[in-house]
């Protein structure tokens, strides 16, 4: 099978189709912090962010530090009638695996450990690479897959689950919340802040294209149009 051909881009980069209703529309110029919504279905199309590379970078670094704490320290401890037990995030998945629930163990590991790591790692690489004058194409490749890592990263759901488990167990044993639980709580806030401080449109506007020849031609045409050369 031959590779699919590239499509021809339009000359107006502000012209978009709404991802939820396909309405063709032109994005308005936005001030910092303002958002543009689709007039037909109210989907938020673009929110312009102040310092769209610096803030996500700072938040991603802080998230990476908390992530390490969350995955290396105990999350829950329990003591009852002379017994003492504690578990980490990884230990929870491991216990499922050892008890014949391998597939669920992989799902727990993926949503609570792997996907958040990818979410943070991709963000670090994207904002790091996007700081170059012409961000290389691999930045676009990571950016393309970044929303999926956020969809499957479920730390906030896991914390709620852990809290329910804690209160359930508290009826017949004393439970102690470990440092990892507090680190995870902080991580939820940082990840949400990181996602909302980031402006993917800003990076897409500068990234090297898959079809680089077309981009160069389109830029030339735009310059000619600005200079009043008839096409």
């Amino acid at each position, binding site marked *: 099978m031959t590779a699919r051909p590239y*499509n021809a*881009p339009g000359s107006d980069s502000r012209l978009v189709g709404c991802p939820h*209703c396909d*309405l063709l529309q032109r994005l308005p110029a936005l001030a910092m912090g303002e958002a543009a919504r689709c007039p037909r279905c109210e989907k938020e199309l673009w929110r312009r962010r102040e310092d769209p590379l610096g803030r996500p970078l700072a938040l991603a670094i802080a998230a990476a530090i908390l992530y390490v704490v969350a995955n290396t320290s105990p999350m829950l401890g329990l003591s009852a009638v002379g017994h003492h037990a*504690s578990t980490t995030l990884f230990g929870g998945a491991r216990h499922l695996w050892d*008890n014949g629930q391998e597939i669920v163990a992989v799902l727990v590991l993926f949503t609570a450990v792997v996907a958040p790591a990818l979410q943070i790692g991709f963000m670090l690489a994207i904002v790091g690479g996007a700081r170059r004058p012409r961000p290389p194409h691999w930045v676009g490749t990571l*950016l393309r897959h970044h929303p999926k890592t956020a969809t499957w990263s479920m730390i906030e*759901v*896991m914390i709620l689950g852990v809290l329910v488990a804690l209160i359930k167990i508290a009826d017949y044993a004393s439970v102690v919340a470990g440092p990892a639980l507090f680190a995870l709580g902080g991580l939820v806030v940082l990840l949400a802040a990181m996602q909302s401080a980031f402006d993917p449109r800003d990076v897409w506007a500068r990234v090297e*294209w898959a079809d680089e020849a077309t981009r160069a031609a389109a830029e030339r045409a735009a310059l000619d149009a600005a200079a009043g050369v008839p096409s």
Partner: protein
Amino acid sequence: MSAPAVGAMRRGWQSCEACGLLSRPAPGADDGRCPRCGEDLAFRKRRSVERTWAFVIAAAVCYVPANVLPVMVTTTAAGSAPDTIMEGVILLWSPTGWPLSLIVLVASIMIPSAKILALAYLLVTVQRGSVANNAERVRLYRTVELIGRWSMVDVFVDTFTAALVQLQPLMAVEPGPGLFFFAAVVVLTMLAVESFDPRLIWDAAPAEEVAHA
């Protein structure tokens, strides 16, 4: 300002789902690639309705064993007690514990069944070419997309309860066979949401004027 409400597809534009760029395929073709990010493009997600139905039906099938089989087995000196999701909810129900019980009830029983019903409703209305309540239907889609992940909560509750309550020989909690089916319902409904193309909701509508508020 008033502009004719026209879909990008009617003008021959393909909107990239990954980077948002509008581009035009070669005349007559509908399977190019995005020149900016390289993503495979189509006017609509390919076989969206069929794929979404497949995930929804699979989720509905798994929903039965997920609720009938035990998700947790508690072993004490008195013997083994298996608990289904609903029994877990009832067990948590007490004068002090009812808010938790409610969280599990909503996240584990109401959200998954509501998701399956909502997606089936969206699919049926799209297949019938319905032109009514478009804005409400797309809002329903977004709600399903937003709350779907929260049904994973019971998987985490059972995982960490089982990992922690290991007080042999007094008491031990092990995951039950229902947990796999329950996790499958959550994953399958999330994949169904991902396969559904909300733009299909608007495709049946004739082009009309839209007032910019």
